[in-house]
């Protein structure tokens, strides 16, 4: 696939506790996106909305009802935690194919009124006697494996939480805007050893939206001088149940490596470590961020703990990882997270970040890891001056 690429901008994330029923912040987020993009809601040719849980909404109907765009083509996308970036990917394809002039990609999730103390587990196919293995349990196994293989410590994991909460404390749209210390992380209640509560991202409600259009149309809109380009939208679905494959070693996720490889190829990036200016990676747990950094090729896998500890992943470091604060600070409204990352990367490349501004980034990467590493989406946006 070659250029011209469509572009994205004006995504609006939010993390808020809404009232039971219809997601309440989503319409506001979409309005803000339309306003920022300079389009009318009626200009939207089609909508893709990512969300995971049936109780958040079903079918494209959830989109047209929430956004009052009755009659529009609307598709509900579900790919575990990659739903948001997959919705974005589908919307980009529609614009790049010339089917739509303007497409809306959004993500939404409403979990907090389900009275579950963590992620509701019914999606994992519970055994009637054994029950489900929780998300912390699955990633705890990756943590014990990495500790055994590379000598990573709980302090190494905690460094990720400290960094991300430090970043998120400065972001007005983050759900959790409080710094944490290593001691607080280590002392937090244990979920699944070695992961404690502060090793895990929070459960949050939220929504985000992005408007995508073609270059020629974008040149007549408010962001004509600073719209980012969509350089790569890639998805790799390894299997529904990666951890059951006998060659899965818990030392990283094959789907991430594949999606990243495909994305770098699509974007023409030959040396990610020098070309990627910032990365929003899926830090559902601290261990996940560490493994992601290696899987995305941003450092050698065993070095990821040192990479964070040395400050190279800080917002002003070599490759800022989660300068927004990540899932740790924003929580993980599952369907919304991918679109929130698009928002963050877009604004970073436009040099109008809400929180900490990363300097001189040409390419920004957004990464979602869905399920146990089942579905991974990697999206790369380029700053306006990286266009053809």
């Amino acid at each position, binding site marked *: 696939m070659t250029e011209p690429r469509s572009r994205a901008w004006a995504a609006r994330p939010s993390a808020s506790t809404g009232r039971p029923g219809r997601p309440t912040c989503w319409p506001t987020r979409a309005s803000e996106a339309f306003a920022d993009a300079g389009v009318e809601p009626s200009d939207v040719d089609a909508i893709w909305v990512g969300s995971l849980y049936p109780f958040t909404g079903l079918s494209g109907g959830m989109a047209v009802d929430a956004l009052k765009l009755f009659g529009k083509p609307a598709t509900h996308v579900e790919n575990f935690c990659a739903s948001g970036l997959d919705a974005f990917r589908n919307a980009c394809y529609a614009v790049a194919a010339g089917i739509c002039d303007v497409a809306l990609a959004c993500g939404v999730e409403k979990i907090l009124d389900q009275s579950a103390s963590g992620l509701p587990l019914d999606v994992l196919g519970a*055994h*009637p*006697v*054994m029950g489900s*293995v929780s998300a912390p*349990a699955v990633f*705890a*196994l990756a943590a*014990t*494996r990495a500790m*055994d*293989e590379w000598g990573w410590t709980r302090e190494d994991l905690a460094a990720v939480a400290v960094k991300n909460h430090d970043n998120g404390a400065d972001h007005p749209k983050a759900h959790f805007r409080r710094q944490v210390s290593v001691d607080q992380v280590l002392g937090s209640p244990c979920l*699944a*050893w070695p992961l404690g509560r502060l090793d895990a991202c929070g459960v949050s409600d939220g929504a985000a939206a992005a408007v995508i259009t073609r270059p020629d149309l974008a040149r007549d809109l408010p962001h004509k001088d600073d719209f980012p380009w969509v350089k790569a939208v890639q998805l790799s679905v390894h299997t529904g149940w990666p*951890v*059951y*494959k*006998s060659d899965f070693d*818990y030392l990283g996720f094959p789907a991430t490596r594949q999606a990243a490889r495909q994305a770098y190829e699509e974007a023409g990036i030959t040396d990610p470590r020098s070309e990627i200016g910032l990365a929003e990676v899926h830090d559902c747990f601290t261990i996940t961020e560490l493994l992601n950094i290696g899987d995305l090729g941003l450092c050698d896998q065993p070095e990821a703990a040192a990479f964070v500890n040395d400050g190279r992943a800080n917002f002003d470091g070599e490759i800022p990882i989660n300068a927004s604060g990540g899932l740790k600070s924003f929580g993980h409204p599952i369907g919304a997270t991918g679109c929130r990352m698009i928002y963050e990367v877009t604004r970073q490349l436009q040099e109008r970040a809400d929180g900490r501004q990363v300097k001189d980034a040409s390419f920004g990467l957004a990464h979602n890891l869905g399920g146990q590493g089942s579905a991974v989406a990697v999206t790369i946006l380029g700053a306006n001056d990286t266009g053809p």
Partner: protein
Amino acid sequence: MIDLEGGGRIFLDVTDCQPDDVHPGLDVELTFRRIHGGGGYNNYYWKCRPNSASTDTASTDTASGGTGTPIETRQA
């Protein structure tokens, strides 16, 4: 998570040992246990435990376990 001899993987609780005994690569065997019960009914499922010292790992009703990465013991 346990790698079974002959192939396949399964999530199981580890039992009959201390948490510090559990590490990746621990050799385990399957054992059939009561998991929970109530109202006069009991529910059974497998757990695993460190391989007993005996070299005879054949069992009448369950396959032998293999090495793997055991999961944390669940709190009752």
